[in-house]
């Protein structure tokens, strides 16, 4: 092989590697390991995990792993909420990925990387049923228009339980859905507000925990 051919081979190989691997190095094909549970029709294992983690402040994020605003939300949550939690904070994070605009489970590792935390558990809901259930649970209506629940960011108090079939209503939620623009019932995601709510709930629970 001539010197030029070798160079060309290296360039082509490098390009193929770059094309196959996200720069974050988090795709399945690049060997990163991330456990992603697939939700079944009874929302397991999320249902069980949620109830098992009673006593923790629980954050639940509903996103499509290819939606840029969801990815931005995940990055903001990682940088401004989770990274700033005190060490040992009693917080659990569940991220439910839904195929709203064509995201697939292959996109999850790169999206999950944005959270920069090991506190999170990741769930893939290939049917998108969870978003429909959550939409009904949250009363996601804007006037007469029903809105599918995604790009939604929720906080559950430590004593919240998931009883029955439908997912529980959170103590606080924010979203990035233009369909709810200007609707005071469902505030648009402001990361500082969200972080303050998480902080307040964690502090309140820690004080309660310490006094017992």
């Amino acid at each position: 092989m001539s010197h030029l051919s070798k160079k060309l081979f290296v360039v082509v190989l490098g390009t193929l590697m770059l094309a196959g691997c996200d720069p974050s190095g988090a795709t399945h094909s690049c060997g990163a390991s991330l456990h992603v549970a697939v939700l079944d029709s009874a929302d397991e294992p999320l249902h069980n995990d949620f109830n098992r983690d009673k006593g923790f402040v629980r954050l639940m994020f509903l996103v499509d792993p290819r939606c840029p605003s969801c990815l931005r939300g995940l990055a903001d949550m990682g940088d401004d909420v989770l990274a700033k939690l005190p060490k040992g904070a009693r917080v659990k994070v569940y991220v439910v990925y839904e195929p709203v605009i064509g995201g697939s489970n292959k996109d999850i590792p790169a999206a999950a990387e944005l959270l920069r935390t090991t506190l999170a558990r990741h769930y893939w809901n290939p049917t998108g049923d969870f978003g429909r259930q959550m939409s009904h649970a949250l009363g996601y209506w804007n006037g007469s228009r029903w809105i599918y629940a995604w790009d939604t960011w929720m906080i559950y108090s430590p004593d919240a339980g998931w009883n029955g079939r439908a997912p529980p209503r959170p103590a606080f939620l924010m979203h990035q859905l233009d369909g709810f623009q200007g609707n005071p019932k469902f505030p648009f995601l402001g990361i500082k507000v969200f972080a303050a709510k998480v902080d307040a709930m964690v502090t309140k629970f820690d004080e309660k925990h310490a006094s017992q």
Partner: protein
Amino acid sequence: MNAKPQVLGVTGGALGLSTLALAFGACCVAPWAVTLLGVSGAVLLARLAFVQPYVVIGTLFLLGIGFWFVYRRPRAEAACDVIQQRRLRWLVWAATVIVIAIDAASFALHFLN
């Protein structure tokens, strides 16, 4: 003075900016951003999406300049080139229709989710 380069510049600029506005508008409902820009690029696009209204204002401003070029009173030496002036007016009007359609689409896309 021949206004053709300026008119082409501002109409082209308006079309380019309206495409950018469309990219900002579509970024949150279209999966292509991750494919084209990667996860970090898509996050950046979403973070910059707030500039979309300003980009749209920029397109209208450029169109305004285009109209000023083609409808201002020509100087005596340029007044003879009536055909070119008419063509440039057509160009600006055509660009206006396209730009307004793209700008409107960039806002309409917000309401898909």
